[in-house]
Structures are given as C-alpha cells and as structure tokens.
C-alpha cells in the first residue's frame, strides 16, 4: 500500500491549459498516472491531448469530478486565483487537493485554511512539489504522480519521505532508490508558512501504513512543525525515522527562498530543531548526502529491514 494515493487514484488538473500545468499533466500521463480530467473555466468541452491520451476539460471541479470519478485535484493556477481553486475542490467534496502554486499571499492562505477547517478535503501545499506513489513498472512507471516531482527517480518500496522542499525530497528519494530500496509514498508538503498538511499529519499516516517500514523527515528553519512531529514520533512511532534540517547557516530575519524559511526566534533555528530530533530518537543526517544512510542506521538500531 501507500498513503493518500495509490496507482488507481483518479486525478484532475486545475489549470491544465497553462504551460506549467500542461507540461506536468503530460509527464504524469507518461508515468501512467490515472489523470482523467482537466479544469479550466471557459474551456469546458475541449480536450487535452497527449501521446494518444484524450483528457476531457471541464468548466468546474464539480463537473469534472461527477463525470470522471476523480477524487484528487492538482492545482497549477496562478497565485491570485489559487486560493479560490482550493475552495472549489473543498466544495466539490474531493478527498485531496494538492496545490503546487508558489507565491500565494499569506492572507489568502489564512482565509482558505480557516474556511476548510473541519471539511472532508485534505489540502497538501501550497508551494509544494506534490506527491508520488511509485508503480511497479520500469523506473516506477504505473504509479501515481501528482505535481512536479520527477517520477523516474522513484522505486516502489517501503520508505516514506516527507519534506517541505522539492529538490531535497528528490535528493532523499534518489538516495533511497540508488541503494536498491524504494518508497511507499513521497510527500512534499510545501515551503509556505501556512499550509494544509503538516509534517506531523503525514508522519501519522506513515505510522499507520503497514507498507511503510521507515521514514525520512526533511525540514527547514522557521516555524515549529518539525519539532511538533518529532515529539509525537518519540511517543507514538515505533518505525525508524531519519531527519534532516536545512538552513543551519541561514542568517536570522532573512527569508531563504521559501516564504516559510525564515528564522524568527531561538526556537526555529536549525540547531534547535536538530537538538529536538536527537532528543526524540530521530537519526540525524549530518549533511543532505547522508539522508538514506541515516535511515539505514536508524533501521539497523531497531533491527528493521527496509527492503
């Protein structure tokens, strides 16, 4: 199994006719993902065609979901309209909305988060690479690729990866695959200060997933989400966990690319987070090159096989 999505999950793409959305819709179709619908207001009735696929486009998420049975949406719409796109998924009662869009105003996300509290739909992102559940085929083809991550670096397996950063997720996934292991699901939760799904939310799902045998938790400076996840792991998670925190050398008060990666106080520095990881029994990767090895060390300590 996997978490949140399986190779059978049907997805729709909001913003499929934009350049960015179209490119990644094509890559997901090539990967073998069940991409069944596109949504672009005003373009309903048209088709998105790629390599023999003919994906119908709808005017609304409601229509797309009703006609195709899609339960997950991936959002590529521009920042001023992205909050609205998320709310539309929630109103349509989807299981999952994955917002790739970078640069959404924080106020919009504060309002969206308030509006979706208690609703059925889970939000991942925004400003995230999305998630991948690898498939059985060559280079993990046949899996479910939602977002912008490279599918081919994955391999079906038993390591769960959760991260705020896209390229660091790829580093971790690639290291795991290079060691002949694989991933159950890799999840990028995004680098914004207000996001839908936290590290802890994903950790809880990995903990309950019988197919996930070990977890890599990748964090950054700013906020306290990694600390919250680590404390929960200490008390509830029996699986081996490795952790990495980026931004040890970032100066205080400067925003490091991600809107959320900014050191405001003593609690959200890399050093403070690493100290909590160690205290909570998480094997710390000293450098990003060390992430998969750190997980192997953690697994060896617990006598767990990740194969």
């Amino acid at each position: 199994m996997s978490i949140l999505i399986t190779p059978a999950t049907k997805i729709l793409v909001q913003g499929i006719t934009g350049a960015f959305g179209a490119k990644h819709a094509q890559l997901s179709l090539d990967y073998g993902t069940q991409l069944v619908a596109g949504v672009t207001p005003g373009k309903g009735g048209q088709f998105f065609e790629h390599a023999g696929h003919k994906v119908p486009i709808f005017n609304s998420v409601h229509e797309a979901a009703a006609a195709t049975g899609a339960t997950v949406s991936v959002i590529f719409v521009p920042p001023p309209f992205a909050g609205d796109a998320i709310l539309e998924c929630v109103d349509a009662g989807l299981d999952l909305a994955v917002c790739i869009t970078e640069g959404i105003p924080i106020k919009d996300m504060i309002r969206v988060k308030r509006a979706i509290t208690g609703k059925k739909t889970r939000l991942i992102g925004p400003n995230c690479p999305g998630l991948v559940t690898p498939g059985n085929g060559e280079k993990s083809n046949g899996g479910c690729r939602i977002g912008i991550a490279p599918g081919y670096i994955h391999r079906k397996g038993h390591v769960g990866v959760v991260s705020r950063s896209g390229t660091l997720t790829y580093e971790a996934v690639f290291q795991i695959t290079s060691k002949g292991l694989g991933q159950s699901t890799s999840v990028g939760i995004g680098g914004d200060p207000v996001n839908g799904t936290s590290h802890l939310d994903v950790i809880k799902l990995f903990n309950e997933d019988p197919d996930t045998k070990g977890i890599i938790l990748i964090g950054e400076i700013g906020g306290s989400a990694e600390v919250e996840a680590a404390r929960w792991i200490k008390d509830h998670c029996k699986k081996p966990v490795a952790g990495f925190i980026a931004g040890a050398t970032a100066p205080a008060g400067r925003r490091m690319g991600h809107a959320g990666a900014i050191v405001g106080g003593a609690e959200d520095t890399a050093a403070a987070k690493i100290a909590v990881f160690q205290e909570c029994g998480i094997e710390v990767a000293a450098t990003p090159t060390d992430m998969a090895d750190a997980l192997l060390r953690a697994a060896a300590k617990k006598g767990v096989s990740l194969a």
Partner: protein
Amino acid sequence: MNIHEYQAKTLFEKYGVPVPKGAAAKTAEEFATALATLPEGPTMVKSQIHAGGRGKGTFTDGYKGGVKFCKTKADALAIAGKMLGNTLVTIQTGPAGRKVQTVYFTVASDIKKEYYLAILLDRASSRPVIVASTEGGVEIEKVAHDTPEKITKVVIDPSYGVADFQLRQLIAALELTGNEAKNAAKLIKNLYTMFWETDAAMVEVNPLITTPAGDVLALDAKVSFDSNALYRHPEIVALRDLNEEDPKEIEASKYDLAYIALDGNIACLVNGAGLAMSTMDIIKHYGGNPANFLDVGGGASKEKVIAAFKIILGDTNVKGIFVNIFGGIMDCNVIAEGIVEAVKEVGLKLPLVVRLEGNNVAKGKETLAASGLALVSGDTMADAAQKIVKLVA
C-alpha cells in the same frame, strides 16, 4: 518588503493609529520646511534606515546615536545635519552600516509608561496573533526569554477579526484603565485593520506609550509586507526604498532568481530553495564559508544561469564557485550548456566545482568534460563541497 518608520507612521495615521506629529526630510534644504510643520519645543531627530538598534548605533565618523532628543527645533536642525548622508552602524546593519538618506523629525512626547504591541502570523494556528506586553522600549526577545508571563498573545479568527472580548483581554494584560484603556482598544483595533488590509507580514510598535494627558501613541513603527501580496498594493510598492537593498539582490530579482548575499567566499548556484540552503550548510560543515544563497528555481534556463554567474561574480569576496543541481525534470545537459556558455562569457578565473545529478546527467557531464573548461566535477554534494572548500582554502 520593509518600509521606513516615517512611511509606516503615515500609514498608521491613515488607519487611525495615533503617532507623535512628525515630518521627514531627504535633503538639508528640507530640514527647515519639515521642522516648520512642528510646534516649537522638544523634538526627536531619527535616522531612517531599515534596521533596528538605531538609538544605540554609531556613525562611521564616530558620532554616537542615530536617534536623538533635542530641547529645541534649532538643536534638532543642527543634529539632523550630522545624521543625513552619514553612515550608521547598528547591531542589525553589520559592520558596513547604512547610509542615512532620510531624517525624521517628531514632537518629543511626554512618556508616562512604555508598552509593546505587535501583530504577525501565528504559524501554529495559521492565524494572525496580537502580541502585547507591559514591558515596552526594551528587546522583546529578552522579555520573552526572562519573563514570558509578561507577554500576552491573542490569536485572531480571520473570518471575524478582533472581537471586543479579545480587546478586553489585551487591555487587561497591559493593565490599562479609563481613558487610556479606551484609547488603546481603539488603537489596537485600527492597527489590526491596517495589518489585514495592507497584507502586512508584521507590524511592531515598540514602544507604544501612554502620556500624562491620557493619550496612547505609537512612538516607533516597524512594518513589513508579504512580498507575495504586493501585486495588489501598488501604493505600498511605491514605498520601496532601493537604497536599503543589496544591488545584487535587486539585479537577481529582475531574473526571478532568489539571491541573498552572505559574508563568506564560496558562491553557490543551486536549484531549489531547500537544496540551496543545504548547500550553504554543507559548505560550512566542511569548514568553508558560503558567499550567498542562490536559487535559480525549477525552470532554470541558460539565460538565468548566465545572469546568476554574473551576479555571484559581482561579489568581490568570492574565491570559488559551487554549482549544485539536482535536475529532476530539468535536463542536466541544458544546465551544463548554460554553465559552459556563462563561464565563456564572463571569463571565469576562479575555481569552479560542479555537481550535477538527475535527468540526462551523463550527457550533461559529457558537455562539461568536452568544453575544456577548468572545472572540477563532484559526484555527490558532500564530495563536491569538500572539493570546493579545499580549492578555496
């Protein structure tokens, strides 16, 4: 995006947040005109730079204090002349300091007591939070550390705004009564409206003061805005002061590159914010010092790579370059071609270590090898980082 105190106070006044009467001057000729708008009597002269610690700062010519109390307007005029055009060094500016290009005159208020008030995002709840303390005019980090019970935080429901009972909580925490309580409640409510309507990232008033007459005033004002929301606030973009920003950072933003100058000597060129941060970290881990944070983004083109090279080479401290690319979707060969072209164009004489991984990496490495450029290849991030640290040492 940050703005100056005098700009923030103009916004405060627009939203009904009382401030001491003041006027700004950008040239010595404007001093008299600015002072003419203020009543005769005690006057404050305040250097306008985007950094805290101004009062305790020292100018590079030895003159002490970027914020001064003057008994008369005539004194204020003389003091302003010492500040304008002078470079102020504070705990937040770094040793280079900032050139004072605007001086702000305000009426010197009678202070009964100083308080602290701020509004910002509470990440844990994903909602705005109002922070208030009876300990104003001092470093709030120190108060939070030594006497956390003296700081009150009230989280605001964004769909409702500040509720009256929450104002009462804040007023009680500030131990205010009577007219002071009424005035402070109105000020807090108006300040929240400003925070919300302008897409501010943070509003900080330190100190907020009460006067013997019962007034409540924002004596200082520090405001920053969410850069993602600037597209809908042209009136705020107009307040941007490019003098306060690093020219290399301004240049980078033209190419949609995220660049932040640091004080080391190993320049980094990376795709992805998380990877860019950890590239800085790994350089430090192996004993080197990063010269910058630079994220070329997921869709880096040849043009972007060339622009990035020019920017990092504009930093004269740079003694070596570390290119770290994980080409997920991006073709490593496109990056390799960009590097080769950039190096040829800028005529690189510094050591360059390149670590390429991901999509079409074999072809990318071939392109680098065939270019005849004197660059060093790294297999992993760790390997590449050790190589550049050694080359620069």
